[in-house]
């Protein structure tokens, strides 16, 4: 799977622990794995692995400061994936309503 594919975003978010990392990072704004570990019932090492995968999917960005790596959510990526679903879903809702009207007339 190509990591630019939206599919990759959903795979990355398919894990409950990883979603908790995302939510926690969102509420902190930016954080290091050590900081995140204070809020989550998993080790700093496990958090680092989840963050690597999230960075691979383009869902978080990071900056290195000496020995620390500071992570942030990358909101555009969420919007791209969720936006497609919302738009295509709305299109089908209105099409299906029109199809129902057409069939009722007959």
């Amino acid at each position, binding site marked *: 799977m190509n990591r*630019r594919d939206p599919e990759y975003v959903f795979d990355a978010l398919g894990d409950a622990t990883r979603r908790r990392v995302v939510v926690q990072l969102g509420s902190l704004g930016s954080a290091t794995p050590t900081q995140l570990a204070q809020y989550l019932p998993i080790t700093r090492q496990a958090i680092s692995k989840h963050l690597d995968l999230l960075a691979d999917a383009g869902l978080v960005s990071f900056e290195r400061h000496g020995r620390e790596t500071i992570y942030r959510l990358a909101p555009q990526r969420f919007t791209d994936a969720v936006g497609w679903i919302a738009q295509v879903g709305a299109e089908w809702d209105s*099409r299906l309503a*029109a199809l129902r009207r057409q069939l009722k007339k*007959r």
Partner: protein
Amino acid sequence: MSDVEREVLLPAAPDEVWESLTDPERLSEWFGAEVTGRVEPGEVVTFTHPDGTQRRAIVEIAEPEQRLVFRYLPFETTPDERTRRRESSRVAIHIEPFDAQTVIRITETRVGSAGTPRPQIGFHARARA
């Protein structure tokens, strides 16, 4: 996964629903675009949207009153005849009778550039014919 899925009960028998899905004139009435071309396996169907943008889709499977699958080609044509890239997606419509009515299930899935399954153009339709 990045799918949109809808399942609805329609107030008509499967043969009527199939007509609405495959007759370009009837399709144009509800699809939100003018549809031209033949809805048959291997054929390319053109959707002209109200703003003049055109998208094309290749019909992969058309099993009367059972299943219709088409895949949008990865580009669109603007009203000034320019072609630009647009993400592809595949639409699968499953049809099932329910009393005197019909349940249809629609799934639209984004088609990625990698790992895309090969289309099965017309195979099922022809095997059944």
